[in-house]
């Protein structure tokens, strides 16, 4: 074993269990708990078992093994998997079977990971609660009456309820970090361009990133190591060399100075969340981190700018669902124009329609400058504010979400209230930065996430503070699953 195998894969060499036994232990839990949690939309029983057998044969033969050999990974259902249904939790892609793997899936397979299934999400990743899934919401294992967050809610539930040890999500405005926070997990949104988007179904292309979700910082770093790196198939992927994230966690940390973002940590943050957050800041100070407050005034406008930019990009990206090449089609229509309009009307859910409408409006003649154009300028101001802050601070911190997990149904009919739950996570996507959420503590028995934001490609330092915080917060709670 010259390569560093994942701790679960190391068990195969200690004779503790075989890859098939490990996989089956998860499949048994999935069969038992998925009907109530709705974490997975598709479980790839047969493919997963045959993959596990292949890893077993490799071990017997003494072949070289990938670092994730035999480790099951749950994958959000907007990441293309060849031969495995990829729905984006939308009726319009209900029967869509990709003819190629996303680059992140190729990378997982190259390291002998097992794709155990595809996880539930808000339709096309548009939402903050998984309630916008065409296949029913996922339930939060901490309290089944509450949402696990979203849009990567299914991936979060899968890991939190031990239906997979690791998962991939995607984050356009907080879709990895907010569900990680709501389910007591660690989730990272990588720097824009660090992870290939090839094969990730596009929502808002200048904001989307695939990232890891796990139970602890080390696992999160491990999974990022596997999926990061330049991809010629994604022209926005960066040609930088990928650092050794696990080695970074073992190095001695330098003394860090962090800024608490006033605009993300004050007004609008629920009392219980604020209490846990302030407690967490004190633990960091005790651990020798310099903690100061910093004001980034443009952030007041970040949510508004995001809810113009993301829908604008979405309205363009989702034009491809026209019933011609793949996906659902209305067969009653008498000509092609009616076919487009009916296919899209019947195939998309309410939130997707709302965002297409919003984006089309923001881009339409007469409104472009006032809405989309102005939002793009606000985006510049947000980037400038971040740049100024990083001249003074190594990292920035805030709560991950303004509330604890809310009740299912609570915000589903009030889109604006739902959008407000992304207020702490959105500025990061607009600036393309890396940010992680780690569990800090509980409020009313529900998990509260702590967000750490770094400058571009500063994942090594983000992981270092996350590791330090993980030890300082010592979050030992688990849902009863």
């Amino acid at each position, binding site marked *: 074993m010259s390569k560093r195998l994942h701790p679960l894969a190391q068990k195969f060499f200690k004779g503790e269990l075989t890859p098939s036994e490990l996989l089956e232990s998860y499949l048994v839990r999935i069969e038992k708990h998925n009907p109530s949690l709705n974490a997975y939309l598709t479980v790839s029983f047969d493919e997963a078992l045959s993959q596990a057998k292949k890893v077993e044969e490799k071990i017997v033969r003494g072949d070289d093994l990938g670092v994730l050999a035999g480790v099951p990974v749950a994958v959000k259902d907007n990441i293309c998997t060849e031969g495995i249904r990829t729905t984006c939790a939308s009726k319009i892609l209900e029967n869509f079977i990709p003819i190629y793997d996303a680059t992140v899936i190729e990378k997982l397979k190259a390291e002998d990971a097992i794709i155990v299934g595809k996880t539930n999400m808000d339709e096309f990743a548009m939402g903050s609660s998984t309630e916008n899934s065409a296949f029913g919401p996922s339930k939060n294992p901490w309290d089944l009456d509450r949402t696990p967050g979203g849009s990567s809610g299914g991936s979060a539930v899968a890991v939190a309820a031990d239906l997979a040890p690791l998962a991939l999500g995607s984050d356009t405005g907080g879709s990895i970090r907010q569900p990680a926070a709501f389910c007591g997990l660690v989730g990272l949104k990588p720097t824009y361009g660090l992870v290939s988007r090839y094969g990730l179904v596009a929502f808002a292309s200048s904001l989307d990133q695939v990232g890891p979700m796990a139970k602890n910082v080390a696992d999160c770093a491990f999974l990022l190591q596997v999926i990061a790196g330049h991809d010629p198939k994604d022209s926005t992927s960066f040609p930088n060399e990928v650092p050794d994230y696990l080695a970074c966690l073992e190095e001695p940390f330098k003394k860090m100075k962090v800024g608490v973002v006033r605009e993300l940590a004050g007004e609008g943050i629920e009392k219980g969340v604020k209490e846990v957050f302030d407690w967490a800041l004190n633990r960091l100070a005790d651990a020798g981190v310099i903690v100061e407050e910093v004001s980034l005034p443009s952030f007041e406008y970040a949510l508004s700018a995001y809810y113009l930019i993301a829908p604008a990009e979405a309205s363009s990206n989702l034009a491809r669902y026209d019933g011609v090449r793949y*996906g659902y089609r209305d067969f009653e229509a008498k000509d092609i124009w009616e076919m487009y309009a009916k296919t899209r009307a019947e195939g998309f859910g309410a939130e997707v329609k709302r965002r297409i409408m919003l984006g089309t409006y923001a881009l339409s003649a007469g409104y472009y400058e006032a809405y989309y154009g102005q939002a793009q300028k606000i985006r510049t*101001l947000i980037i400038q504010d971040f740049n100024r802050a990083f001249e003074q601070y190594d990292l920035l911190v805030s709560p991950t979400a303004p509330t604890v997990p809310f009740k299912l149904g609570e915000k589903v009919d009030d889109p604006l209230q739902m959008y407000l739950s992304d207020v702490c996570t959105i500025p990061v996507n607009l600036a393309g930065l890396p940010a992680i959420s780690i569990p800090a503590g509980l409020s009313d028995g529900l998990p509260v996430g702590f967000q750490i934001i770094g400058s571009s490609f500063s994942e090594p330092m983000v992981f270092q503070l996350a590791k330090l915080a993980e030890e300082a917060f010592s979050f030992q709670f688990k849902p009863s699953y």
Partner: protein
Amino acid sequence: MISREDVEHIAWLARLELTEEEIEKFTKQLGQILEHAGKIKEVDTRNIKPTSHPWPLKNVFREDVPRESIPLEKALKNAPQKESGAFMVPKIT
């Protein structure tokens, strides 16, 4: 404020057939969202350049190496309707 006619016009631009109920609901909801989003208009951005992308990337090239293409049968695999190696669509009027 967004009017019912605006909603109908946008729905047409976006190729979405909306029900009467949806038109009413979206007129109200889009109005609320745009009122909130309209807050950005109060910011002075006269000398600020717009950002369309996190990094100033342009003209990313790669070597022009021939590779195997997707076989026709595979490319048509997910087509709702196909004929003679092509995607089939209703009459174009």
